[in-house]
């Protein structure tokens, strides 16, 4: 057993379809804005899905040209979000052997993979960039941050599809609780808006085809939901042992109180219809956090706007919290505004969850016109919701193809 130090969140950074940083993303989430737009690229014309939620600020506007050349778009987003988070945390002074990185992507540097394959076919092997391998590997964003910050306690990249960044945050919590690190740069990223990826998800009928109304296409819990909307960007949290944070007088957003994991062992891509595995992950996260179900005031749902997943998740929340607590919790899916950041979703949504506790205001779910009858908890619709004062906790769920379930619990006050 290592020590069981408390873990706190001391820095936040993001670049999302709603804004190039956390403040702009957060204000857009509270205001109920959509980051989804029609795709204007020529290649989109051949696809059944012609919209996506691209990053609001392109990395080319932020990073120098040579740096851009050597980093895949996933790494570019990770570097940008990490810089904001590190600065937000007050650039903590930490022994490099006590500093770790736990940052993932669901797919890895697939834009580099696909673009360099085009280069190979059109111009031959010598024209393939010598930076291709470090750019395409799924641990590329973690590696880039490990080098940038000189982290020497470990650089990790947990890969579990759309649960990846939640799993990375959970791993970061575990590293600090287990005594392996004092500070962990944790989170995740995705950058996969490319015709092949859209074709692949569209081919499995997982994406919304609401081409005539992109901003209203991501509609978790609505009866008319018809699939997710692909998004890109990154979210990074600075996790720190409470002792380390207090010793340097750091501003503490919330406690990263616990993580729970399970797997469905049921289907590669379909969630368990009753959300049995999801419920076990939530129960485990509450146990690790030593949080009573009744303390969970808000849950940021994974709900991606696919027919199969959203309702099952609300059943899982009810089952895990029990009826009394499930009757009081309020739930939203911020994917209605950001789209689905895939491997970056859990991190961006953890930031939303932490800020909801910190500011006592929970972002809404937009685009619900006709709430699905099967929804088993109260959904915050259209307008943000004030949360009560006093000690509170909040839950963030993430699930991924392959049957991965991760639940994170944050506590405040």
């Amino acid at each position: 057993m290592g020590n069981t130090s408390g873990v706190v969140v001391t820095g936040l950074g993001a670049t999302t379809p709603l804004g190039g940083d956390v403040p702009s993303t957060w204000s857009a989430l509270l205001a109920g804005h959509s980051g989804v737009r029609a795709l204007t690229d020529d290649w989109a014309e051949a696809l059944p899905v012609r919209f996506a939620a691209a990053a609001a600020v392109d990395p080319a506007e932020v990073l120098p040209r040579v740096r851009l050349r050597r980093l895949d778009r996933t790494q570019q987003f990770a570097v940008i979000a990490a810089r904001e988070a590190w600065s937000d945390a007050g650039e903590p002074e930490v022994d490099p052997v006590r500093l770790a990185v736990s940052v993932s992507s669901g797919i890895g540097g697939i834009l580099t993979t696909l673009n360099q394959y085009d280069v190979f076919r059109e111009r031959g092997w010598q024209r393939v960039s010598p930076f291709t391998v470090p750019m395409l590997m799924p641990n590329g964003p973690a590696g880039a941050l490990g080098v940038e910050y000189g982290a020497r306690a470990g650089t990790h990249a947990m890969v579990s599809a759309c649960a990846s960044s939640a799993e990375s945050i959970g791993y970061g919590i575990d590293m600090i609780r287990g005594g392996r690190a004092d500070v962990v740069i944790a989170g995740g990223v995705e950058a996969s808006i490319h015709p092949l990826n859209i074709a692949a998800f569209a081919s499995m009928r997982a994406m919304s085809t609401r081409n005539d109304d992109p901003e209203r296409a991501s509609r978790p819990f609505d009866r008319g939901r018809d699939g997710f909307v692909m998004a890109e960007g990154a979210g990074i949290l600075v996790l720190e042992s409470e002792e380390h944070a207090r010793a340097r007088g750091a501003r503490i957003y919330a406690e990263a109180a616990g993580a729970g994991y399970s797997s469905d062992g049921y289907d590669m891509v379909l969630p368990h219809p009753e959300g049995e595995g999801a419920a076990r992950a939530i129960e485990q996260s509450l146990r690790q956090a030593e949080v009573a179900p009744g303390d969970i005031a808000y849950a940021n749902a994974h709900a991606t706007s696919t027919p199969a997943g959203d309702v099952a998740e609300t059943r899982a929340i009810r089952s895990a919290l029990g009826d009394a607590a499930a009757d009081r919790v309020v739930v939203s899916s911020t994917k209605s505004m950001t789209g689905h950041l895939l491997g970056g979703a859990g991190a961006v949504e953890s930031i939303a969850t932490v800020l909801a506790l910190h500011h006592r205001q929970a972002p809404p779910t937009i685009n619900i016109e006709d709430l699905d009858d099967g929804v088993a908890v109260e959904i915050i619709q259209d307008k943000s919701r004030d949360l009560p004062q006093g000690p509170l906790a909040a839950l963030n769920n993430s699930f991924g193809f392959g049957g991965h379930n991760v639940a994170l619990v944050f506590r405040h006050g």
Partner: protein
Amino acid sequence: MAYTEQQILEGLGEIVDEIAGVPAAEVTPDKSFVDDLDIDSLSMVEIAVAAQDRFGVEIPDDQLKDLKTVNDVTNYIAKQEASA
């Protein structure tokens, strides 16, 4: 068709600026790529391929490792062009 050494030097400066972000004005004949311009081995590979595209002269790996300075590269390209 041959490029003058001055043209090769200027072209090399533009390539190094584009690939490694070192201002073209710093790419002068006596500079070492590694020691003075802080260019790593992967970037040297990119520079050699870009130079091949621009000047039509291939720089094989076993030659590239011996080309330490900007002058070494300009001379190599000029010599290969002259013999082509």
